[in-house]
């Protein structure tokens, strides 16, 4: 269970949360490079995520955050380097196999299917492990969805579509979630609701890799931050170090 490498990863996060129990590293990304056709987008990305953590990737538009998540998910055609999920290198694995290992992805554009109703959208991702949320638990988290089960998926409001996009991957039993800008374009009330939802998922032991532009929002849920620029990770710090890094962040994010 507790080997030295895992302990090292646990040390980095013990800065932000009290008990120094050794936890497994869920995801280790090393030297990840990725291409869209001829354009070289990621130039050696390095980071890791430990079990039970919420880790946030920050960075300007076009920095390569989405490409990083997609590379982990196996849906970028050309990628090199090493992506280890629960000790298994998945850099050459097809995305359906990666999903079956327990990686779940909520895309930036949400990906709600117009030809499916809300129930079908919710039930679409197959179960990959035992212990996913039951429908009752999902409706407790997202009461809105229950009333709209028979609506066409894309007839929902933006906020409801985002809830649906997250809800459907909670059913699958995957314990590692990648959420790409879940608050983008949503009203403050809904952003707050999503924040509470992420906090609850963290309590329940989910490991979450979050992409956000809104670091104010991210700071309410994240244990650690990484900052991306031009296809590289240029900075990494714990949530408790956020204030100390504020000046640098403003420069990186241009806000």
């Amino acid at each position, binding site marked *: 269970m507790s080997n030295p490498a895992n302990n090292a990863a646990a040390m980095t996060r013990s800065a932000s949360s009290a008990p120094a129990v050794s936890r497994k590293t869920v995801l280790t990304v090393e030297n990840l490079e990725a291409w869209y056709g001829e354009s070289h987008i990621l130039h050696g990305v390095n980071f890791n995520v430990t079990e039970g953590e919420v880790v946030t990737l920050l960075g300007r538009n076009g920095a390569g955050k989405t490409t990083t998540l997609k590379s982990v998910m196996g*849906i970028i055609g050309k990628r090199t380097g090493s992506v280890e999920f629960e000790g298994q290198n998945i850099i050459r694995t097809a995305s*359906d196999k990666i*999903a*079956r290992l327990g990686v779940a992805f909520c895309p930036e554009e949400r*990906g709600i*299917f117009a*030809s*499916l109703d809300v129930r079908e959208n919710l039930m*679409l991702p197959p179960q990959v492990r035992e212990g996913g949320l039951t429908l009752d638990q999902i409706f407790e988290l997202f009461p809105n969805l229950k009333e709209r089960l028979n609506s066409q998926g894309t007839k929902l409001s933006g906020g409801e579509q985002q809830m649906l996009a997250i809800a459907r991957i909670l059913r699958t039993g995957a314990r590692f979630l990648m959420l790409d800008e879940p608050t983008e374009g949503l009203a403050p009330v809904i952003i707050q609701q999503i924040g509470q939802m992420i906090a609850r998922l963290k309590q329940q032991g989910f490991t979450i890799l979050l992409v956000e532009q809104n670091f104010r929002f991210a700071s309410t849920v994240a244990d650690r931050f990484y900052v991306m620029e031009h296809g590289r990770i240029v900075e990494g710090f714990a949530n408790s170090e956020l204030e100390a890094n504020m000046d640098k962040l403003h420069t990186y994010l241009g806000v």
Partner: protein
Amino acid sequence: MQALYAQLLVGLINGSFYALLSLGLAVIFGMLNIINFAHGALYMMGAFVAYFLLQYSGLNYWWALILAPAIVGLFGILLERTMLQWLTGLDHLYGLLLTFGIALIVQGLFQNYFGSSGLPYAIPDLLKGGVNLGFMYLPIYRAWVVVFSLVVCLATWYLIEKTQLGAYLRAATENPTLVRAFGINVPLMITLTYGLGVGLAALAGVLSAPINQVRPLMGADLIIVVFAVVVIGGMGSIMGSIITGFALGVIEGLTKYFYPEASNTVVFVLMVLVLLVKPQGLTGRAA
């Protein structure tokens, strides 16, 4: 009046074939983004496989209804794995040319070995004869073709619109990458979808064998009309393909009764009208 009902029945029969074929084309187009010009040749292969089964293995019509779609479906799967899969992401034109070429090769081979004239295929004993309905004489085999086609079409509709497998299919038609990222083997689904569409064509071929004889070019003649049906109905909807298929068969039949001179062109005239008014077809989604 007798003649009117007779033409209506002919219309329904043709409509059955249009529906089975355009349904397969719609499903294939949705998943593979390929306009399957080989569809007519595969329909013809269905009829020939039924003929071979009877001739060389003594397996009768009922066996052929199951085996011919399975065998020709497997042939389709082979085509998809060896050739069509490489066209992913390319312009429609490539798929159209490739499948058109496949159709020409397959039809050419059959013509080479079996000539162009028709081989007879007898109506199965159980479906021989007919009933006098008073207003018309109804050959049982023809009634069977209409009812059975309708059942198969509706079963396919149910599979696609109402089951979990169908939800995968519809979702993958919209966004295959995301569906795959949920853990579904989309390439396998694409292959099986092609097999399903091809199987439906072959099934239509078996149904047609006792009515139209078994000829290498039986599909080449039919598929032209079927493509017009597809243009009229649009590629977007499963139920749309079924309804358009049957409706155009009936319209053709009625034209044969009221204005026989136009019976061979009415579908194409309708196609032109629809293209002028609603280019994506009556039930199609905008491309």
